[in-house]
């Protein structure tokens, strides 16, 4: 009988937890309001409130063990939020790169820019395709770009430590295609010269990328003349004149990809159809927004899975810690609870009171953990060799409100499980036994 009861509780618990994790905030708010109303308006509710009051007032005497619940849950939430923030920051950086009204054209079947090659003839055809926007001089806003990798010494490494950076050779229209990118220091490179402008992220990561410095790319020495900021994946790149970079890397007149500004987002289909029906071409067309978002999919999935796995294992540890503490708390107050029941308090208020106490501790833990994660990790810069590029992608940890909310929900779920069984025990223990208990 007891076994069946426990099994039933477990099943209900599993379902409740699943639903709980999916709940949006307004439903949670509604639940809280309903619960508060129950407490304020019904007799049982008022009883529960007074029992909770007694429990909370004695918390001080159980400070040590109660703080275990708080700190345990804070640990879980902190680690979970930090790990999720890493995936979030990574995905965000790539997902806000590009737009729906610019297209990227690569050789058919290329998974990424770096494995694509387009020859000069194809580029000319692509430039003249319908759907491409034109500037005031009626020139198509198109940039044939070339992507290569270069090794540069990294900033905080030991001497000789080199990292890979993506070098992009761009045409003069590149800036019109990427309105986000702005020169923030120094000046623009001059076409035909061995001059470079570097992204802010790249500048942070690699040594010697200040305007006025020289760096070695390929077999040539280049001058860094400016710094640009774009707030997205381009921030981790170094830009130079496409023709000069193609010469340095012996790519002739071929390019890796063509970026094209479209007349509007709807022109993509026209543009795509025109290129697909042209027998001279075998290319893939996508919006830049789509292309960069797709690059982030695999990696951010891995990061998210990692966060949730680690978080879950830690949560199991914390749940049992909370259970322990609350069992001890119930045992310590067994006589008090039994007395309450003996003078007419029913089971429900007792259960609610114990649960509320644990949930409050859990909430506190969740807030502390989230706050710590936010204080320590928000804006923390990390970098990784990104899929589909040949260079380091710098990104910052982003502790978003939605992540904090997710962390709080985890905290409350842990508190719920940790409080439920001790609460049931408190309510079900025979009054006579409990009164005799030490």
């Amino acid at each position, binding site marked *: 009988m007891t076994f069946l009861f426990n099994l039933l509780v477990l099943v209900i618990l599993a379902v409740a937890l699943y639903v709980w994790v999916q709940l949006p905030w307004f439903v949670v708010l509604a639940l809280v309001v309903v619960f508060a109303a129950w407490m304020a308006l019904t007799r049982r509710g008022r009883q529960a409130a007074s029992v909770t009051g007694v429990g909370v007032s004695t918390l001080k005497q159980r400070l040590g063990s109660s703080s275990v619940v708080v700190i345990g849950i804070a640990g879980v939430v902190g680690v979970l939020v930090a790990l999720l923030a890493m995936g979030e920051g990574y995905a965000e950086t790539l997902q806000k790169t590009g737009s729906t009204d610019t297209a990227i054209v690569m050789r058919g079947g290329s998974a990424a820019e770096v494995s694509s090659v387009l020859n000069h003839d194809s580029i000319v055809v692509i430039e003249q395709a319908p759907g491409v926007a034109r500037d005031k001089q009626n020139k198509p806003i198109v940039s044939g770009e070339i992507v290569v990798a270069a090794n540069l010494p990294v900033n905080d490494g030991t001497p000789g*430590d080199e990292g890979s950076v993506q070098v992009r050779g761009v045409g003069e229209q590149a800036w019109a295609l990427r309105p986000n990118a702005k020169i923030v220091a120094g000046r623009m490179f001059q076409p035909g010269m061995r001059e470079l402008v570097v992204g802010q992220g790249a500048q942070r990561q690699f040594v010697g990328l200040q305007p006025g410095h020289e760096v070695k790319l390929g077999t040539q020495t280049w001058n860094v003349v400016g710094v640009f900021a774009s707030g997205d994946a381009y921030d981790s790149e170094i830009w130079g004149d496409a023709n000069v970079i193609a010469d340095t890397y012996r790519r002739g007149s071929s390019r890796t990809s063509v970026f094209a500004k479209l007349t509007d987002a709807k022109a993509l289909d026209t543009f795509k159809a025109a290129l697909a029906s042209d027998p001279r071409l075998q290319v893939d067309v996508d919006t830049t927004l789509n292309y960069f978002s797709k690059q982030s999919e695999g990696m951010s999935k891995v990061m998210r899975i990692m966060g949730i796995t680690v978080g879950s294992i830690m949560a199991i540890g914390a749940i049992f810690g909370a259970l322990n503490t609350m069992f001890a708390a119930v045992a310590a107050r067994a006589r008090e609870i039994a007395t309450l029941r003996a003078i007419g308090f029913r089971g429900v208020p007792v259960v609610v009171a114990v649960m509320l106490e644990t949930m409050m501790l859990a909430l506190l833990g969740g807030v502390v953990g989230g706050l710590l994660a936010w204080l320590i990790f928000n804006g923390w810069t990390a970098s990784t060799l990104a899929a589909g590029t040949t260079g380091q992608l710098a990104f910052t940890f982003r502790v978003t409100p939605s992540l904090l909310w997710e962390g709080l929900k985890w905290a409350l779920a842990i508190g719920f499980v940790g409080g439920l069984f001790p609460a049931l025990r408190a309510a079900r223990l025979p009054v006579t036994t409990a009164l005799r208990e030490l």
Partner: protein
Amino acid sequence: MKYLHLIWAALFRRKTRTVLTLVSIAAAFLLFGMLDAVRTSFDQAGKSANGAQRLQTGSKLSFIDTLPQGLGEKIAVVSGVKSVAYANWFGGAYQDPHNQVFTFAVSDNYIDQYPEVAVSADQRKAYVDTRTGVLVGEKLMEKYHWKVGDQIPLQSNIFPQQNGSKNWTFNIVGVLHPTDSSVAFYGQMILMHWKYFDDAVMKGYNNGQVGWYVTRVNDVNQADQVAKAIDAISANSDHETRTQTEAAATASWMKQLANIGLIVGSIMGAVFFTLLLLTGNTMMQAVRERTSELAVLKTLGFSDRGVLSMVLAESVLMVLLGGVIGIGLAALLIPGVSASSGGFLNLPTVGASSWSLGIALMLAIGLVVGAIPAWRAMRLNIVDALAGR
């Protein structure tokens, strides 16, 4: 040891509490086991004795730049060099362009540089005899249910064939069995003939270039000099090289992926801090509850130090029990994690070093959390304790 049964009985005096605590500890050490596996897998890569004998020579410009094939002959005559092999990145994918398979086009003697990767003699011969033959890692064979003799299609996302098609077909003639965890990634790899690749690829795509050279040196202690000598060959040319030991090359590659150590370290820190608190709290409770029992023990003639060590032993035993269960679980789960990551993570099972580090941690944590309760038990005044004061 004499009092083991007594300690054991004390430990399970309150079954529920002890079991709950054990689960907490087990969860923490499960996490420790998994994270340590990740750390060691990054640590170990290329670090075997054989790995130290191998040098990797790649383009100094960047990892996507290639080197001329003729360089191999010059490297071969550098003093201290035993043998040279080369390889090129092929960029294979199976069935779907996003389903990447690590595929290298390699020179005929490439596999000789890796004695830790076993290939049976007749399969090796079949490989040499078959132009389109490939050697496939054992994990990969399992994953796609391939068998020796199968013909498999691979898409390259870089290289088209002469006829412009990027679909290539290969014959599986042998299986690569990595026998050392430092070369475990060869279980996920496909090796093809560089010569066939260079002949069949569309004109203008490869031009006899190779991606990197793998050199074996005669004497590990001379590896640095040999590396310098190799780099000196192409100094100031348009294909300058960078030569590193395999371990150094892998380490710098891993560093670029992410700062694994820092992340792993901070997670473990958070976990163990939490664990310390949970167990410490339980031990405090346990000792507080047993005040009178401990007083009886002392009355019977147990020394102060005896009581101290019994309480300490109890907490160490508890952490050890939970910890061993946790790491054991990790050892069971890790193969599953590696399998479900689809080759992205290739974790070694919990090794001897992880076990010993784990057990050292368990002992340390057990002593730390037992310290205060044990101290209290030792200082216990018999008269006060028996009176319940």
